[in-house]
């Protein structure tokens, strides 16, 4: 599935090793506040990385930076082989982010939403169907409007959109929030399957007992810096 993605290698940094994310001393601003104050992080393909840390530590900003939504103010950052300092827009094709919002159209059905996101990336209807199947959204749920769904079902719909878009790097902000126990188990299953299929996943969460079991590695983020990773 990810074989179609060319891995752009740059001789200057460690991209040749296959790192999906490489941040060195990255600084990013929210307004004039340095939400990231020199964060360094390396993530390899297929990892499920858990970002831990208190509220306001910079978890969300790190995800938004990797998604190309937040400009890199200082330092260097490369995601999926794209240099964020110069080509921030290019990274977006490789990355899917689900933050506090799901990016759904509430008046449309599950199938229409997933289909729309699939169509944007040129996915066939078979691929869209497969994505919905993997999220357990085929059958009765597919024809229900998003406004009538539970929080967990919405989250799954958004995830199906990521699958349909064939995102390489998934950036998930508190994905377990608002899900019941069954929903959480299901989400974990889905994420493990996606990672097994070649996607790289970064999960920001402070529900450690839940997300900790899922993750292949954990790092802590404190005061806009990553602790316990490289350098």
């Amino acid at each position, binding site marked *: 599935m990810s074989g179609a993605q060319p891995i752009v290698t740059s001789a200057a940094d460690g991209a040749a090793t296959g790192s999906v994310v490489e941040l060195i001393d990255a600084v990013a601003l929210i307004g004039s506040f340095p939400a990231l104050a020199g964060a360094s992080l390396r993530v390899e393909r297929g990892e499920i990385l858990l970002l831990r840390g208190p509220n306001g530590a910079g978890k969300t900003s790190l995800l938004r930076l990797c998604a190309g939504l937040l*400009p890199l103010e200082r330092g260097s950052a490369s995601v999926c082989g794209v240099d964020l300092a110069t080509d921030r827009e290019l*990274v977006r*094709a490789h990355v899917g982010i689900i933050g506090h*919002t799901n990016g759904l159209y509430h008046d*449309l059905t599950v199938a*229409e939403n997933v289909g*729309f996101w699939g169509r944007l990336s040129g996915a066939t209807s078979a691929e869209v169907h497969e994505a919905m199947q993997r999220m357990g959204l085929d059958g009765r749920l597919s024809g229900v409007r998003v406004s009538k769904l539970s929080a967990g079902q919405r989250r799954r719909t958004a995830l199906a959109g990521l699958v349909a878009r064939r995102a390489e790097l998934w950036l998930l902000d508190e994905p377990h929030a608002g899900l019941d126990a069954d929903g959480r188990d299901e989400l974990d299953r889905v994420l493990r399957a996606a990672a097994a299929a070649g996607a790289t996943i970064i999960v920001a969460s402070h529900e450690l007992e839940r997300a900790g079991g899922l993750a292949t590695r954990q790092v802590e983020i404190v005061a806009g810096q990553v602790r316990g990773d490289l350098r």
Partner: protein
Amino acid sequence: MRSGTLAVARAIARRDLLVEWRSRVVTNQVIPFAVLVMVMFAFALDSDAVLERVAPGLVWLATIFSVLFLTARSFAVETADGALDAMRSAGVNPVAIFLGKSVAVAVQLLVLDVALVVAAVVLYRADVSLGGGVLLVTTILVATTGLASVATLYGGLAAGTKGRETLLPLLLLPVVAPVLIGATRATESAFGTNGIAVSEGWPWLGLLAVFAVLFSVVGAVAFGPLVDE
């Protein structure tokens, strides 16, 4: 791997219209609002002769007020659950977003204009001949294209900001003055208001066409930098 700009634009326009078809906000709220404005004009002006004379202007005034609501609605759908952010983070070409949303706004405006012209005929005794009808349809098509383009452009800029309800009219109303002028004059000839001949209306279409082409092209280029952070 990524779809072409036009295909994406078509997907966006289709999705916008589907949202409207499902929610009926424009059908059930904006169009009644526009017609209500026409009725209120009748109360305020209180004279058949005056109404007949100013009917074309009122049609386009009501259209321009409604464009504000239509555009606000079009972007409220995108920002309600972060879909605009999601589209940007999905690397969707801003040109495609602009074209798709403009087309959807234009289609809804067309429906609105038909309702307003019917209202003018019924309420203000406007009269349309066959030749006038051709002129009227052309005017509506061209003026609507221009209006939808500028409205989408500035609507996108205002979408994420605080105070968007007041920012959009402030930015949009001065720009659409040429459309108000051109479309009103053309419609006057189509209605034969004050004995103006149909042939006198066609030159105004040149102005409307220049406006439409200019803002469609420039809007497609400027939308990205205006909306993106």
